[in-house]
């Protein structure tokens, strides 16, 4: 369950950053991305998947959230 900081890069994409793992990847797909919620399975550019119970309401980025490994 790493702490993940999600922030927006200059190009407007979401970046998924895990300091402890030296992992910084762009987010390619988010399962739930509406005005009222954000989360579910999140897919990164390197193909890995991470999961978080959808956050209500949709958070303001950047924000640190706790993710689980998805499958």
């Amino acid at each position, binding site marked *: 369950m790493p702490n993940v*900081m999600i*922030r927006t890069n200059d190009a407007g994409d979401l970046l998924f950053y895990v300091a402890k793992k030296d992992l910084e990847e762009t987010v390619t797909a988010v399962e739930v991305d509406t005005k009222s919620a954000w989360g579910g399975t999140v897919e990164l550019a390197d193909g890995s998947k991470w999961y978080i119970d959808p956050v209500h309401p949709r958070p303001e980025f950047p*924000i640190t959230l706790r993710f689980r490994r998805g499958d």
Partner: protein
Amino acid sequence: MAASTREPIQDLIQEVLEVYPDKARKDRAKHLTANDQSIEQSKQCITSNRKSLPGVMTVRGCAYAGSKGVVWGPIKDMIHISHGPVGCGQYSRAGRRNYYVGMTGVNTFGTMNFTSDFQEKDIVFGGDKKLDKIVTEIEQLFPLSKGVTIQSECPIGLIGDDIEAVAKKKAKELGKPVVPVRCEGFRGVSQSLGHHIANDAIRDWVIGNRDGDDSFATTPYDVAIIGDYNIGGDAWASRILLEEMGLRVVAQWSGDGSLSEIELTPKVKLNLIHCYRSMNYLSRHLEEKYGIPWIEYNFFGPTKIAESLRRIAACFDETIRVNAEQVIAKYRSQYEAVIEKYLPRLEGKKVMLYVGGLRPRHVVGAYEDLGMEVVGTGYEFAHNDDYDRTIKEMGNATLLYDDLTAYEFEVFADKIRPDLIGSGIKEKYIFQKMGIPFRQMHSWDYSGPYHGYDGFAIFARDMDMTINNPCWQELQAPWLRADKAAGA
């Protein structure tokens, strides 16, 4: 080397690796590569931030070095206790040349060494009482100090002292921040984790101190210089350019910086990061908590300075953008004169770099401005993201190396025979004895500043006087010289 493709470099890497046992060879091979600009992500071509191999000579430091030496040390009006045995603090005392203004021993303490000087009994019975006493003594002797940090050395973590409890108690007693930093040297693989720990300590113990206090008058042009350690006056050379642009520099992190500057950083409008490696953690935190955007910049060499000034100005309004152009125009004749003078003397010279932090990529532009070529570069303690940024700065088929061992560095230098090597004091005399001109790129070889337009002039002069020093022609004994022998 200029015209070479990737194969000769790959062959060279194989040749260097041959002496290692199989397992070590396999491991080291991941850390060495020929640069390929088409690769987007460095983790596809180079491994970094891994534990060094036992048995090889590496030049890495420890977490204590990263916290006390790099991040916390330059904060001038706080007292940084090297908590543990005396050596760690004493042998690194004032070695980093973080210049500052102030009266040392009265209101600033940068070049002094404070230590708890652990003895056997402190290890056996614990050092918390001693620490408590030291903080009290510091307050009596140096009442103008603005705070105290406790920089743990290895034994503190091993014996399990509760420095946090002491810090909380003393902070209440003194009414000043007392910051415990858990930067025991054995943590992590290099000083890089020390940077992270120090950043987290600043985040947890200092940053929030002025939340809700709006007495500081802000302007729309407030910025903070993050990750400039004022080595030889670097931060000052950077600061004047920003101020000429019309920006107000509220804080310098942490070269010539003070505790109140750090506490005021949450009030700025933009964070400017020079050393990404050591302070990106805090910039990310400040962005998350206070919504302050951050950008990286590079103040080495006129090309990169102009690029950076324009990028910084783009974050502000029209007046700043106009000012940025004026600043660049103002210094044009100055830096053109420098290039005109030194380019003919330095053009085409090859440089190998092996430093830490930001320099292996940031100074590439400055060398290129002087017509020189960087043929190899690498970091002691970088992570993936540093190499991501380096790949684009370096030419194709140049050598990239991570956590280079002393043996590999010597062989690479001997095979490539660069005209200049830039690295640290531990490497300096080896390469000078090999007949290769050398500059220390950690401490600017006791020169500096190298940042900004003023720094570029000094940088160019230093490179010239090193490479074109007449001593390099005198390395061979007179009676062994071919021309002399023929004459006799």
